[in-house]
């Protein structure tokens, strides 16, 4: 009896041990199994594809599985139940998993994803980052340049922007098109009337406007509690304003035809002197070096500051926020082109694109699959898809009024906005032109400014060049200059210190960078 009991006990113990070991092993292999999961399905997919290729109709094939990684600017994001996403899947015959990554940490996440080797089918990547360039060179992404001509929308891609967004002259990702002359100066309209000033046409007028906003009590509450323009840790406004002064956009051609970085030009120093004056006179918020960009609009919405130098469509966002507080017919904000500087009318352009969408070789294994993925990207250029991903479903998220789009979503209806939010991040805007947003006063003004900007934008001659030095040390080099600029503005360093910082930049790799860019520039000519 006793022996028998012991035997049973032993068996139970053995069973327990085996179960435990198995569970450990299963846990280990579970991770691998998960990641290998799509593999067994792929042959079926491609099989279906090649069978259907005869009549060139992919719609008969199984839905294409796609994982798409895009930046997100909101925390309320669409999930699988979003009708917009479902509509997209139906139209393109796909089964899509969205990976939204907060924009503020997108760069980190992108680098980590690239390093992990477990890439989504499609991901938005920064063409200038070292890890993307290395990944592309070592064969992580499909080179899609030769395929583009076969697709009705993608074949319309702008060759200049394609070249700007290429790596070593090869297109590893399809660019996401952006308006070239996107910048503008958004100003509080009421305040302008109060201080009796109109559009600032020159830099002096711009300065006077800021000064008036600080000193003439534009909000009329009798207190000295306003200032001119609000700037945050994000240094974009400084970059834009220094171009007004005649400093080149990142790189400019010197008298000898060689490219010179912007911070080594005399115009750059002129601009910095002006910035310092703004800071010393309190026309810009004193805590700009530590302020979080996420609350950039707040001082303007709350009536502490009156000017924002950024993209022109920021005017629409500020006005939207102010309308939420107190709705009225007339917009609160007006938007203008850059003021004319000593070197003429100049403004900073965008690169014409914001990052590229790359197709990974680890997830998209065969050329047939690649073609289906490209077909998907091509379809995103169709009017239907541009409308769907940009504005949602007609009757639900927007309605058409006289050929214009009138959004039905309001910021309060979070659930409705959520269905659509962030979906436009996968759009390339390569394809036919779609209907426009309803022409409110402010939309019209934004359009005008952006169209007029195309005449005055200053392009960066080094835009298409991929520098080895920059890929490795770019961030460090940029920091030296960006920090020195901020220190100069707040008075931590003087002209001497600025020169020292530039000397440090040159000795830390800047000289090599200049030499390399000039060499590449010569070769590209």
């Amino acid at each position: 009896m006793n022996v028998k009991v012991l035997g049973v006990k032993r068996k139970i113990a053995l069973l327990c041990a085996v179960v435990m070991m198995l569970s450990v092993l299963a846990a280990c292999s579970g991770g691998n199994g998960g990641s290998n999961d799509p593999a067994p399905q792929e042959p079926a997919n491609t099989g279906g594809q090649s069978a259907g290729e005869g009549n060139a109709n992919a719609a008969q094939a199984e839905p294409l599985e796609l994982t798409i990684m895009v930046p997100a600017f909101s925390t309320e994001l669409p999930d699988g139940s979003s009708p917009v996403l479902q509509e997209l899947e139906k139209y393109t015959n796909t089964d899509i998993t969205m990976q939204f990554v907060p924009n503020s940490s997108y760069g980190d996440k992108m680098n980590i994803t690239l390093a992990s080797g477990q890439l989504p089918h499609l991901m938005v990547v920064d063409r200038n980052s070292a890890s993307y360039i290395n990944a592309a060179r070592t064969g992580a992404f499909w080179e899609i340049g030769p395929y583009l001509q076969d697709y009705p929308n993608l074949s319309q891609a702008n060759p200049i922007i394609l070249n700007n967004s290429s790596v070593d002259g090869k297109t590893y990702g399809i660019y996401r098109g952006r308006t070239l002359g996107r910048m503008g100066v958004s100003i509080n309209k009421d305040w302008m009337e109060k201080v009796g000033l109109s559009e600032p046409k020159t830099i002096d007028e711009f300065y006077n406007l800021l000064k008036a906003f600080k000193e003439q009590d534009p909000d009329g509450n009798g207190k000295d509690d306003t200032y001119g323009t609000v700037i945050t840790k994000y240094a974009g406004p400084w970059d834009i304003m220094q171009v007004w002064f005649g400093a080149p956009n990142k790189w400019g051609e010197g008298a000898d035809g060689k490219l010179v970085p912007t911070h080594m030009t005399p115009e750059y120093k002129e601009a910095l002197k002006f910035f310092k004056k703004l800071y010393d006179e309190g026309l810009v918020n004193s805590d700009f070096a530590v302020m979080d960009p996420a609350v950039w609009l707040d001082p303007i919405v709350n009536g502490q500051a009156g000017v924002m130098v950024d993209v022109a469509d920021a005017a629409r966002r500020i006005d939207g926020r102010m309308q939420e507080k107190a709705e009225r017919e007339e917009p609160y904000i007006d938007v203008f082109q850059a003021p004319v500087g000593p070197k003429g009318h100049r403004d900073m352009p965008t690169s014409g694109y914001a990052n590229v969408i790359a197709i990974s070789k680890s997830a998209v294994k065969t050329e047939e699959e690649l073609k289906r993925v490209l077909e998907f990207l091509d379809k995103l250029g169709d009017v239907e898809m541009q409308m769907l991903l940009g504005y949602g479903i007609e009757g639900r998220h927007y309605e058409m009024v006289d050929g214009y789009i009138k959004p039905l979503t309001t910021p309060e209806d979070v659930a409705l906005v959520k269905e659509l939010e962030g979906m436009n991040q996968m759009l390339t805007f390569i394809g036919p032109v779609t209907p426009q947003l309803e022409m409110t006063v402010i939309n019209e003004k934004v359009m005008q400014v952006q169209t007029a900007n195309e005449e005055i934008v200053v392009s960066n001659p080094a835009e298409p060049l991929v520098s080895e030095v920059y890929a490795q040390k770019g961030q460090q080099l940029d920091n030296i200059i960006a920090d020195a600029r901020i220190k100069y503005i707040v008075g931590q360093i003087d002209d001497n210190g600025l020169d020292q910082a530039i000397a440090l930049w040159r000795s830390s790799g800047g000289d090599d960078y200049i030499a390399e860019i000039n060499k590449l520039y010569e070769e590209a000519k």
Partner: protein
Amino acid sequence: MDSTLQSGPDAAVKAKKSKATVLGSQRPSWIGKVKKDRWLYVLLLPGLIYFLVFKYLPMWGVLIAFQNFQPFVGFWNSEWVGLENFRNFFANPDFVRLLRNTFILAVYDLVFFFPAPIIVALLLNEIRVNVIKRFIQTMVYVPHFISMVIVASMTYVFLTTQGGVLNEAVFQITGRRIDFLADPDWFRPLIILQIMWKETGWGTIIFLAALASVDVEQYEAAVVDGANRFQRLWHVTLPAISSVIVILLILRLGNFLDNGFEQIFLMTNSLNRTVADVFDTYVYFVGITQGAFSYSTAIGLFKSIVGIVLIYGSNWLAKRFGQEGLY
């Protein structure tokens, strides 16, 4: 604690002895022992596998510090560069600055923050009304549960020159505003103050536990001998908890070069970067944002080696001075 600490070496010695005595027989005795306790060893197995798979296996990853690692070429095919990454790092002008910043912050931390929980615990220990003691204890350790991100945002709201509450108070009193957030001179005090505010209360818990175990009779004897409060603290309480203090100090020294990444990262800006850059943020900066994986691994490895040296060194020192070490 003592018994568990000592049982390891003791058992090993015993095992050695018994092994020696049966060396003559055909079967080494450890096989017999394993056989006898085999089910216990099986129970041990999951733990062992866990450490092997999740701790020891990934450790080989540090080898990329000696490579020029490219993720898509892979671990096996990346170019082997030997000590080049280390040479570059030590020759880099940033190295001296990083070492200086890291070191100064670590010393500040040790001098100002490390004693703080001990002092608070001693003060709490003197409170005889239990309700008040518990209340204060809870109040001081609540900040521990607040995320560093929130602490950094709160610091901004209080100290910004554009209407920060504390800065306005400073302005009312002195007539000028102090740029706490951007002034490099304020960076280190700010970091230490944040840490003290957030972690002091939490740190007291372990000392309070040690204090609770002090023999009450010793206090009574001290009172009979005419010792006042301070003398009792000095001659009874402190010696009783000194071993806990030493062990925590040794553990702290092992992490000497860890400054706490997110705190520093959140408090860094263009104006204080010269004093704010430390190894932790630098590794993030070159590794994650610039994709220089090998280089940043080399830096991390260097940091770990310094940590090991400090642990061994301080443990050795503690034993020299007659204290019980960590092991």
